[in-house]
């Protein structure tokens, strides 16, 4: 059954979209990530114009992070103060990102920048996560050698920054600069890559801000919710690239898939889950890197010209 998408202006099989939402939702529920880094490339692959894929991806993440943030809100595993600071950075990052997106699109280089960002960030994050999780698996296999577990409480240069503030929920006393900077950086990525940035936000909060793990996911979801909401709004208002029909179809599949994914995830060990996620991230990275290097089937690209016209 085909459905014609009003903004993407293509005709797609409705079950393909529901299945895509279900599949990505399953993985995102299993690994506790937004899944945008899978969804956006897949949408582009099935023929959705990249600009629409990125903006609609952000719209769909609003739904998944809304459903994700409620349990954390109830259990109070959410650092509101930290979340608001990340949000201040994130909002400015998102505004800057949407401008940058429009500028790059005007230069005809947006596809390249999207691909390069994916290869770069997925490569770094996937690689680090893979090394860390493989070490953890080896440690778990030989418990006798697990003596030297480093516990770095020092944040080095981050502790020397001014404008310090107390964060009771996280038990931290740090400068406001790092959270705002991290938020800004992730906000820009949301606009350019159509990802929630959880895969960068979560490691940054754990390893750079040294936040306790139990509040990290809730706080990350909280800030992602508002940043994706702002990004969706700006993309819709400025570039008219949000396809509500596409977003709704992906959301229906996504929320259901996420529930099954979360259930499946409980039966797998944490470090093995991280290794699997790392493998997935690296696979997407390799695929996009390969596409950049391999000789394209057509050496010419046809791009529409004129702001706000078409996609």
């Amino acid at each position: 059954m085909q459905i014609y998408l009003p903004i993407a202006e293509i005709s797609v099989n409705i079950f393909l979209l529901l299945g895509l939402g279900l599949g990505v939702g399953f993985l995102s529920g299993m690994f506790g990530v937004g899944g945008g880094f899978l969804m956006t490339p897949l949408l582009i692959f099935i023929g959705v114009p990249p600009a629409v894929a990125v903006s609609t991806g952000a719209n769909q993440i609003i739904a998944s992070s809304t459903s994700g943030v409620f349990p954390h809100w109830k259990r109070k595993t959410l650092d509101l103060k930290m979340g608001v600071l990340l949000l201040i950075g994130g909002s400015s990052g998102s505004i800057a990102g949407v401008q940058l997106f429009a500028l790059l699109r005007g230069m005809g280089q947006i596809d390249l920048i999207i691909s390069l960002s994916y290869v770069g960030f997925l490569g770094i994050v996937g690689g680090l996560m893979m090394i860390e999780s493989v070490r953890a698996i080896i440690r778990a296999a030989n418990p006798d050698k697990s003596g030297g577990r480093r516990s770095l409480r020092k944040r080095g240069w981050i502790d020397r920054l001014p404008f310090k503030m107390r964060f009771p929920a996280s038990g931290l006393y740090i400068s406001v600069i790092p959270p705002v900077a991290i938020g800004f950086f992730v906000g820009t990525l949301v606009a350019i890559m159509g990802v929630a940035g959880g895969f960068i936000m979560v490691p940054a909060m754990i390893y750079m801000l040294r936040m306790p793990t139990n509040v990290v996911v809730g706080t990350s979801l909280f800030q992602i919710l508002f940043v994706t909401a702002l990004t969706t709004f700006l993309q819709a208002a400025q570039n008219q690239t949000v396809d509500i029909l596409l977003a709704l179809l992906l959301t229906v599949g996504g929320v259901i898939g996420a529930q099954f994914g979360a259930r499946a995830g409980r039966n797998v060990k944490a470090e093995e889950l991280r290794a699997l996620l790392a493998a997935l991230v690296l696979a997407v990275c390799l695929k996009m890197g390969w596409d950049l290097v391999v000789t394209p089937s057509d050496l010419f690209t046809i791009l529409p010209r004129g702001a706000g016209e078409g996609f």
Partner: protein
Amino acid sequence: MIAALLLALGLQGQPQIATEAPGIVAALTQETVEIREDFDGAELVLYGATRGLTIQDEIVVVLRGPGRDLRVMQKSRSFGIWVNSAPLEFDDVPSYYAIATSLPLETIAHPDELERSGIGLQAMLEANARAMEASWLLRASTVVDGAGETDPPAEPGEQAEPPALIRQDRVSEYLDAIARAGRRDDVFAEAQRGVEILDGGLFRATIALPPLTPVGNYVAEVYLFRGGRPIASRSASLRVEKAGIERFFFEFAHDLPVLYGLFCVLMAMIAGYIANLAFNRR
């Protein structure tokens, strides 16, 4: 269908030009094509009648979609990565171009004649390129003044020189790329013998509209060829528009973008909240 035939016959009866001069009339079976949520392509039928049709006469039908401004870029390898470079801009390229003929186009008329009248995909694109030449030259002279003729960048990694771009062989590569992309999406189509000549000077042309049919105003042009030259022509207009939910959302997104943005955000939040109610309560 019968109505269209009668209409065509009726039009034929009207004395347009001199009594014995060859003439042609045509009408589309529909004046608007609606794109609804289940749109997956459509078939368009054009009926027409000719006056004074002889055995060596042939009919050519051209359907042209709304024009779009394009920027065509060639990918070149730099640092091992394929990067879009050497842009060439084209104004008002039809987003849809289909041609149906009573015989293969190349047997109806000589390429020179087609080029002169701008009929056929190749001729249409070449005419467009000729119209753009002045603006390319202007741009090239302001970007790189007096850089002279340089060979096109055959070797990867080499930067493209704008003046070399405008050379005939380079431009035709770009035109081929536009034609290739259009054919890939089925928005450029050349149907060999898409026109059926019926009895009594009547004819029928069938044109396929693909799933990716662009929205906008279309013009169908009907030519009567005799001895390899167009001797009469007529045009009819067609409108392709979104309808139903498609139209509602498209107009909402473009006319009230701020409200539409808020609506999208709110819908997603509600969907997330419903999911939370359905799955997260214990």
